[in-house]
Every structure is written in structure tokens, then in C-alpha cells.
């Protein structure tokens, strides 16, 4: 029986794979069906996943294990229930409390994290002696690095009309952005083609057995 079910599973997977690909041609009943099945399955998947991997170990198991030792966990539990009060228009306002606590936390953490890793670390990473590199291309690269960063940051300077002399660094900044966008695009092609290769391998190998 296992074997039959495995084969059935592969055919099911192949059906869904082809249905999604069919979307490239145009919208059709197969895609519509797969799309809705996908939404349904994945919503339930994450619900079950969160129950088993977060709610049970982080909350229920701890409370059952040692209620008074983990009594502080009642706070998020109550806040979580307050979130659910949204379902009723009369009690909707209660959900503002958990939301504001979560957003306050987020704001605090983001402020620190971004200040540290996206501002200070990037600034120090640019404080280099461009002439310390051992090759001409290294020195040129370092100079580009410094100029690119300064003009790139300047491109985002909003409080000055970008005219006349002020337009120059901002223009150079755009050039750097464009080079970077092109490079990122080109660099990603390989990873994206790999995804397609993976799917074709499934179809040609596991399903059709054309390749070994």
C-alpha cells in the first residue's frame, strides 16, 4: 500500500507543479484550483506549526508544568486573548493594548539594531585608507567604495532642491544605484534558474523517469 500511496503522492505533486506552470500561459481552472488549495493548505500548515512549535512549548506546556513558576506568561496570554477581542465590534478597542505593546517593542529593537548594524557598522566599514590596497584595481575599488557611499547617501537628501551644483553628487549617486541594481539582478539569475532546474528534475526524474 505504501508504494501505491507514494506513487499517488508523486502524481499529486506533478499535477500541482504543472497547474502552477500553466499560469504562465494564462489564468485557467487548474491554476485557480491550485491557488485556492495552496492558500488553504498553507494557512492551516502555519496554524498547526505555530500551535506545535510556539504555543505548546512556549506557553501551554510551561503553564501546565509549573503554573506558579511561569505565572508571568499569563500576561502575554491575556494580551493574546485581547487581540482576539477584535472579532466583536464592541470589544475591538481592547486589541489596541497588545498592538501598542508589540509596536513599542518593535520600535525599540529596530531603533537599536538599525542604528548599530545599518548605520554605525556601515560607516566604520567605509572608514578605510583607500591607498592601503596592494593593487591599482584595489585602490580604484576603494575610491569607488567611498565616493559611491557618500554620493549614494546624498541622493537621499531630501531638504535641498537637486539643481545646479547640488545635482552633481546626487546624479553620481544614481549611477552607483543603477550599477548596483544591474549587478544584483545579474547575480540573482543563477539562483532563480536553479529553482527551475529543481522543478524540472522532479518532473523528469521522479515523475516521468526520463532522466536517471
Amino acid at each position, binding site marked *: 500500500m505504501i508504494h501505491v500511496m507514494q506513487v499517488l503522492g508523486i502524481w499529486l505533486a506533478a499535477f500541482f507543479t504543472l497547474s502552477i506552470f500553466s499560469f504562465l500561459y494564462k489564468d485557467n481552472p487548474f491554476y485557480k484550483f491550485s491557488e*485556492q488549495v495552496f492558500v488553504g493548505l498553507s494557512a492551516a500548515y502555519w496554524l498547526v506549526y505555530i500551535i506545535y512549535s510556539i504555543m505548546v512549548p512556549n506557553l501551554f506546556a510551561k503553564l501546565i508544568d509549573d503554573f506558579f513558576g511561569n505565572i508571568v506568561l499569563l500576561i502575554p496570554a491575556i494580551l493574546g486573548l485581547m487581540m482576539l477581542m477584535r472579532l466583536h465590534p464592541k470589544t475591538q478597542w481592547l486589541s489596541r493594548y497588545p498592538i*501598542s505593546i508589540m509596536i513599542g517593542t518593535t520600535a525599540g*529593537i529596530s531603533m537599536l539594531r538599525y*542604528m548599530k548594524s545599518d548605520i554605525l557598522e556601515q560607516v566604520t566599514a567605509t572608514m578605510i585608507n583607500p591607498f592601503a590596497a596592494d593593487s591599482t*584595481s584595489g585602490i580604484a575599488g576603494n575610491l*569607488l*567604495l567611498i565616493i559611491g*557611499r557618500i554620493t549614494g547617501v546624498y541622493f537621499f537628501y531630501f531638504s535641498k532642491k537637486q539643481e545646479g551644483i547640488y545635482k552633481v553628487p546626487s546624479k553620481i549617486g544614481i549611477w552607483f544605484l543603477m550599477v*548596483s541594481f544591474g549587478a544584483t539582478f545579474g547575480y540573482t539569475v543563477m539562483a532563480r534558474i536553479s*529553482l527551475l532546474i529543481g522543478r524540472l528534475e522532479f518532473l523528469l526524474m521522479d515523475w516521468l523517469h526520463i532522466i536517471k
Partner: protein
Amino acid sequence: MKRSLPLILAFIVGVIVLLSEFIPHRPFNQIVSTLENWFMIIAGFAILLGQISLIRMNANKIANRLPDWQYHLAGLVSFALMLIFGLLWGMQETPGLLGDGSGISAWLGAKPFDYLFENAYMPLSATLFSLLAFFIASAAYRAFIIRSLESNLLMITAVIVIIGRTSIGTMLTGWLPESLSFWHIPNLADFIMEYPNSAAQRAILISAGLGIVGSSLRIILGIERSYLGGDK
């Protein structure tokens, strides 16, 4: 009160988090991880809101026989199946309400939840992801056109990096002498990635970082409150 108390709460929590970065002493050093844990639990409860919204919307479409209602029925059925399977027999090593379901696993080769995951969810997800291969080709075809200086820069660097990433680049300029090795396409692609690309990426990070720091500050101080609804 319904309005200002939440803002005060956000302020207090935000300030505590900020302080905890600079105070290694207890209890501050544990606050962030506690709050993050709470965040997960609250979000865990909140996920039900979404699921109820999903069920309600689908049920509505089915009840009113709106166009394509059959597909929404299929969606609702798959949602229910996955949920019931997961709750009854669990997933992977986690048992469900009815235990491990070894009988049904022996028949199916895996737990029902995992069977659906493996044979329906995974291929759907991977195939949708793989559409990117097609889209990256059509986007390149349409957008990489010689027009202005900016779009030329975009196109030229993309082409150099695309060539440089595979064996084609090696074949094309492999004959260049050592002194010109900088212009060997794979080397050139590496140079672009390492210097101008990272310069611009960092510039984006720095300025966006400033935006995030500023927005966070406004949120903590209660100046930015649109997330509670409305502007003022």
C-alpha cells in the same frame, strides 16, 4: 483613555528596550528576549484572527455563489483537511490528539499532515518560487534596453555579471594576458560586486536605517500613531 493608554504603553515598552541595550545589569539584560517571547505568543493567538477572516471570506463567496465559488470551496476543504490531520495525528515527531497514528502512517508512508505537506504544499511552494526563473527572463527582455545613461549602466552591469557567473565568461576572455586580467569578465564581475555594488547597497542601508531610526523614535514618542488607525 482608550486612545492615550496604548500610546503610553508603547512609550514605556520602547524606553525599556532602549535602556536595556546600555544596562547589562539584571533585570534589563533579559527584557528584550522576554518581550520577544511574548511577541511570539501574542502573534500566536492573533493568527486565529486571520484564519477566521479567511474562513469568513470564503464561506461568504460560497454562500452567495459568487464567481469561482467552487474553487473557494476547494480551498476551504484543503484548509480543513490539513488542520484536522495536523490536530489529530500531529506533524513529524510531534504527536497529535489521537497520538502518533502509526497505523495510518504505515498505510500512507507518513503522517497524513506530512504526506500533504510533502506532496501538495511543497511542490506548490517550490513551483511558485520557480516562476521567478521565467519572470527574470521576461523582465530582462523588456527592461534592459539602451535608452538613457542610467538604464545603460543597469543593463551593462547586469550583462557583465550574467556572463561572469558561468563558464561563458571564462571562455570569452580567458585568452587575455596576465597584465589585462582585470578585464577578464569573471574578474570584472567580482570587482563590480565588491566595490560599486556594495557602495550603493550600503548607501541604501544607511539612509533607510536613518528612516527606520526616525520612525521608531516617532512611534515610541507617540507622534506616529497611524497603526492605531487614523492620523491624528
